[in-house]
């Protein structure tokens, strides 16, 4: 009986058999498993993180792009018979200055807005709010009263006043908000970039004849709060000026954004009885409270300065 022997094994067996395909497989079975597991873990992690993290938003308000950098707002009073040439000179002064630096001007008139019977001087507050709506991309909004001229065309607002380093040098710290002895004082450690509201003090207190506001969420809050009907109906002696003194002293969210700068920076006066007197080179001259005497007094006060700004604008 014969049984078949298994075939004899070669004494020199081939060490390795060449692969059927010469390419090395990238994805082996074992590796595929690991990749699948890692993928699952990754998906789970992403799910965990996106579930809660996805809802994190900051307030999505339009950020001003800086075109124009500054809007100059002047409320023009055409209802109290100021000489036309005076008002034209005021307008022209702003327009020429704005053209030189790429700014915009905005001249609303008294009576444009419904004030609910409050004094006309409140118009400046709502006009500022209107300017924010009209120029959402402006970085700064500068209110300059009608009784003022811009005298130095070479100064740019964003560098002369608002540049953080410059502002930190200028701001008057730890100073009573309402002189001489208010216990509420301006902040001592305020960074220039955090300032949203720049104004000056004259001898009577805070002056709202010329002030700067940085366009943004805070400015909306500030201007709308200032314009609150409850302040308009309260009969503050100096209307919006006193309303502002009130909110600045009672509400730290406003005080913490405010900086008081020397009057010469943006609010020099023609006469020294009320505040710092104008010196050549100052940005602005104001004939403050000329309207208390008469409408013609303003025109008369402005005459000498009109000559000056016209020549300096021509030369610049």
């Amino acid at each position, binding site marked *: 009986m014969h049984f*078949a022997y298994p*075939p004899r094994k070669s004494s020199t067996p081939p060490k390795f058999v060449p692969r059927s395909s010469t390419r090395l497989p990238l994805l082996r079975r074992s590796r595929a498993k690991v990749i699948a597991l890692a993928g699952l873990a990754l998906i789970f992690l992403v799910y*965990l993180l996106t579930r*809660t993290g996805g809802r994190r938003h900051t307030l999505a308000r339009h950020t001003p792009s800086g075109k124009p950098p500054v809007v100059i707002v002047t409320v023009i009073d055409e209802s109290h018979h100021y000489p036309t040439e005076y008002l034209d000179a005021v307008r022209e002064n702003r327009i020429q200055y704005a053209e030189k630096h790429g700014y915009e001007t905005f001249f609303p008139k008294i009576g444009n807005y419904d004030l609910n019977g409050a004094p006309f001087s409140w118009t400046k507050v709502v006009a500022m709010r209107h300017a924010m709506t009209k120029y*959402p991309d402006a970085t700064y909004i500068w209110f300059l009263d009608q009784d003022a001229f811009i005298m130095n065309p070479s100064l740019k607002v964003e560098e002369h006043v608002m540049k953080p380093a410059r502002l930190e040098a200028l701001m008057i710290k730890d100073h009573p908000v309402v002189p001489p002895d208010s216990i509420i004082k301006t902040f001592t450690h305020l960074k220039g970039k955090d300032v949203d509201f720049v104004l000056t003090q004259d001898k009577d207190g805070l002056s709202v004849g010329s002030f700067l506001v940085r366009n943004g969420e805070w400015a*909306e*809050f500030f201007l709308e709060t200032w314009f609150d009907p409850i302040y308009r109906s309260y009969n503050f002696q100096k209307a919006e000026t006193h309303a502002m003194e009130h909110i600045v002293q009672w509400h730290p969210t406003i005080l913490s954004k405010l900086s008081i700068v020397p009057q010469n920076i943006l609010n020099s006066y023609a006469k020294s009885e009320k505040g710092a007197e104008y010196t050549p080179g100052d940005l602005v001259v104001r004939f403050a409270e000329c309207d208390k005497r008469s409408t013609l007094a303003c025109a008369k006060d402005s005459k000498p300065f009109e000559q000056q700004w016209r020549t300096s604008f021509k030369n610049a």
Partner: protein
Amino acid sequence: MSLSRSPSPVPGGGWASPGLNINSSGRSSPVPGYSASNGTPVIWESARQKTMGAAGGYPSFSTHNQGFFTRHMRRLSSSLPRFSSSTHYAEKEKLGRGRWSGQNVPLLGRLKGIMARMGRKMKLRLLVVLLLLISIIIFFNTPLIYYWRRTSWLGGGQKYVIILAANVGGGVMEWKGAREWAIERDSVRNKKKYTNRWGYDLEVVDMSTKKRYAHEWRESWEKVDFVRAALRKYPKAEWIWWLDLNTFVMEPSYSLQSHIFNNLDKHIHRDINYFNPLNITHPFNEPYLDEASRSPVGDGDSSSVNLMLSQDCSGFNLGSFFIRRSAWTERLLDIWWDPVAYEQKHMEWEHKEQDALERLYIAQPWIRRHTAFLPQRMINSFPTGACSENGNDTNIHYDQKDRDFVVNMAGCEWGRDCWGEMYNFRELSYYLNRNPWERFKEDLVAVIWYKITGKKVKL
């Protein structure tokens, strides 16, 4: 040609040794087969067949997977009943021959046996399942779940802080009686349970009348200070939920996230005109305001909502409201109390800070833009006693069929029974949130028992 053995004929004709087939007899055709390694062209029939069967063109003498039995041998044999070899022979005789031994092996031994017979792969799988089960049990029975729900990037409970106003008017105006203490105890316990369950923070604040506020005519504006203090104390908090003392969380199983915040867009109303008991003119139409301020829904993005409250039959209700950490909130808290406004309005302001907020909402576009309203029954259902002039209102009053989240016994201290209402709602909440076992006992067993014996039982 050399043969290792004498050739034998195969039944079909021809020879088993290939070398002998000279003619093509049909049995063994010239095979292209395998010739590589052993250097001889001779192929035995049996080897050839194996070669054809094995994969890859290599010879295989594998004994695996040969047939059904070889493949399933282990499984079959292990599932067969076995005689126990451990039991004593004589005993076995006594108990009866051939009896399956499974029954008298102790449990541990049986388990050991199962484990021994189990394949390695199966063991691994079982281990994974077991581990999963254990981790689930550990997760739900230890504080782990609390920390999970609390962590800001997992459950997010840290983002919510509940402020509970306790001790209203206590200390000065009147002595607290037993009922007042009971109300306070129940209310605090209810919120404590709720916050512990979901990993929120609870801040119980003392609203007792204080000299500080009395002097400044600022009673009831303490809310502002407490919200501010809570924002400072819990730096990770995003939303503050203010709750009055006379409130009760009826459904502790609702998390704030699933109830409100995950679908904020769907729940909130930015436009007050959906329910406007105060007849507030909305939106603003002043031409000097921007688009978002003149739109009835603000910017329409739910992420800009910073204050959420509900309105009852007479306007804003601050018994239960949400406020979010933001610059806007700081401004609101700052402006909320203003001496000039107070001087002019305090005679009309019956509800003090609530009326002050209404006034701000009416006057200020920047406040309206970030305020939203929630349906009252979502966060602030009333019992039938409150706002009852026009009978039951489905927008205002609690309905247990809908399982309302929170009930606020507003105004119960004026002529209603605070403690009675609190007690009833507490019991109702327990009743509605019984676990399945309690339901089985009370809704089925007790009822059947009652039908059979006519006696009520408490199980």
